[in-house]
């Protein structure tokens, strides 16, 4: 009897707390109504901080004051990793915001897990065909999973090559326009203890660019795996041979080569255009450096798009969705795209923004930003597929193994091909 009473008390206490938690969680859900004329809240989770968040906040403020129906409320989750974890937890607990930032390569996984809504009607009705056609094709292609649209391009960057002009002048070299030229200049620089090509922890993005130039898609939307295509192996060998020859070097655990570049460890560094501001900050005042497009491979130029898009999460009501569309349209207007690009260093997502006087004036005063803009016509987005994140982790491990445990490109990429096929078959 005694034991039973104690157990009953505990059970009742747990149930009571459970009930409180349940009622509390229900109560805290935003009510999607315009009760008493209050604007509909459009919550937007970001993975940015500092000047980036400030710039977006300014855009949200001006949007909020431009109309009375919607109010965009930003929440910074401090970084993309935390943002992804929060999205995952919110999806599980049914508390997703209306909008969020997401890497375009996550779209297929997000769609598969039922996180996001397709926004075909945004592209069909909210956005005029002129505005849609104004978006760079590489960015637009990244917003799709299959034939459906799931995002708008937002914070976008491309791979560019940073050039140490002091080294070029000292050793009488020119900016290499092909990988062959890069390797050749590496031979000259090697004897002076300088690398020709420095890259981040991995050369995966450059490899993907080379593959695109050679007409190979590592993994197609239909699930065809070509990571071990002879051309793909050949492309990896080009860089691995340079590493072996001490004419190229990875940043390793530093992750970014920036520090080494500004210290004159290499003549060239291929990195993200989003790294321009940090390079400017870290470079000594007397260092003469510039930027240009990445070298061509087999006669073609190709540079990979990176960055985040904006998505509309499942669970958003029709009114919230309409508000999200309204804000997305606002962000894609050339003057707002220009403001965002100028404030952050990301490339403008629409062509008229690039041509605008304001952005051209910005390029005039920031000539290092020109390289990314010039690379836009040759840019491409990776194909997103279900299981992409898993593939990307394994690809990262593959490139790391090639660099640190000296596994041959052939062995490593054959293994990656098998793993990728397994991922695709598991997700079917």
């Amino acid at each position: 009897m005694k034991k039973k009473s104690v157990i009953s008390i505990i059970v009742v206490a747990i149930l009571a707390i459970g009930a409180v938690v349940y009622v509390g969680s229900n109560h805290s859900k935003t009510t999607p109504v315009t009760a008493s004329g209050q604007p509909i809240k459009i919550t937007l989770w970001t993975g940015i901080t500092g000047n980036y968040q400030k710039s977006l906040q300014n855009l949200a403020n001006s949007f909020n004051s431009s109309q009375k129906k919607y109010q965009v409320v930003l929440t910074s989750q401090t970084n993309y990793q935390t943002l992804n974890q929060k999205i995952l937890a919110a999806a599980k607990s049914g508390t997703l915001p209306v909008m969020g930032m997401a890497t375009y390569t996550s779209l297929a996984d997000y769609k598969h897990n039922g996180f996001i809504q397709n926004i075909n009607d945004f592209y069909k009705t909210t956005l005029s065909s002129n505005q849609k056609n104004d978006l760079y094709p590489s960015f637009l292609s990244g917003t799709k999973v299959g034939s459906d649209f799931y995002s708008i391009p937002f914070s976008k960057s491309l791979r560019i090559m940073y050039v140490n002009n002091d080294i070029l002048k000292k050793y009488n070299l020119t900016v290499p326009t092909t990988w062959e030229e890069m390797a050749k200049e590496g031979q000259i620089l090697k004897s002076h203890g300088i690398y020709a090509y420095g890259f981040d922890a991995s050369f995966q993005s450059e490899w993907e660019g080379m593959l695109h130039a050679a007409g190979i898609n590592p993994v197609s939307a239909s699930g065809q795996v070509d990571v071990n295509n002879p051309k793909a192996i050949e492309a990896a060998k080009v860089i691995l041979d340079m590493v072996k020859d001490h004419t190229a070097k990875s940043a390793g655990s530093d992750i970014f080569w920036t520090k080494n570049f500004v210290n004159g460890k290499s003549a060239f560094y291929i990195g993200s255009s989003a790294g321009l501001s940090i390079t400017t900050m870290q470079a000594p005042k007397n260092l003469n450096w510039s930027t240009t497009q990445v070298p061509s491979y087999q006669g073609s130029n190709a540079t990979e798009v990176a960055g985040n898009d904006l998505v509309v999460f499942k669970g958003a009501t029709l009114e919230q969705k309409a508000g999200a569309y309204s804000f997305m349209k606002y962000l894609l207007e050339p003057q707002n795209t220009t403001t965002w690009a100028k404030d952050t260093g990301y490339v403008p997502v629409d062509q008229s923004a690039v041509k605008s006087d304001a952005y051209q004036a910005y390029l005039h005063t920031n000539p290092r930003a020109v390289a990314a803009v010039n690379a836009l016509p040759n840019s491409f987005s990776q194909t997103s597929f279900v299981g992409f994140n898993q593939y990307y982790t394994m690809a990262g491990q593959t490139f790391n193994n090639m660099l640190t445990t000296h596994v041959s490109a052939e062995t490593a990429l054959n293994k990656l091909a098998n793993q990728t096929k397994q991922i695709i078959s598991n997700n079917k």
Partner: protein
Amino acid sequence: MKNKKITLKSTLVAYMYLSPMLIFTLIFNFYPIIKSFALSFYTKYNFYTDQVSAIGLDNFKYIFADPDFKKATINTLIFVVGVVPIAVILAMILALLLYRIKFLASFLKTIYFLPFVTSTVAISLVWQWIYNDQYGLLNSFLGYFNIKPINWLNDPHWAMFALIIMTIWKSLGFNIILFLAGLSNIDKRYDRVAQIDGANTWQRLRFVTIPLLSPMTFLITVNSVISGFKVFDEIYILFGGNPGPGSSALTLVFYLYRAFYTESQYGIAAAAGVVLFLIILAVTLIQFWYSKKHVHYV
């Protein structure tokens, strides 16, 4: 109070006092553990809708066949074996020395304790610089002995060693404080009696202090072993979010984290968690069994 008869009322009062913590433990510890166990058997499962289409042992079969899991298990064991004995012995030696000195003792205790109160992220970032192959302090120091620069964080042969050194350094402070607490609890009369009996310093240390310190040594060892099996933050920061060059610092918790957060393999992650739980449980039980024979409680 001691002899007060246990009644229903007194039991209820005790349970009422216990209930806040008990309820929190049940909700935030016990329930997730049960859910994790269940999740490890879900082979076809939608994590977000909680729909389970198939259950079985496939997740366990997968991890036991996965070379990365094997690597993670071996690396974790190497890490624990590399860290725990040195961390415990070194902390004990330093605590014994600190216990004996009077001059600057408090200052030195503070110095040793600093790593414990500093965030792992900050420590790992500092060590990232110390280990830097081109600009690092350690390579610069080794250069005085004509030792060629070592690529600590990018060479698979050195990465685990680098991680072990940093972890030992980081764990010293807390372990020293615990040992000092253990030493101050030993009745000084034991030492005096041994002294009267003619025991020298080494004999007093070997046959009096160390055996009487054994409960604390046991506690620190168990704690260090469990922390060792759960190592993650240090690796994540030190190697920039990667499990070391060539996965040389891939540990069980890193494997679990990667499966859950980056690969969305929730069942696999849960199965890895269950295996980790069983390993820690087995090792801890062995330690308790061993302690019955070798730990002396006064």
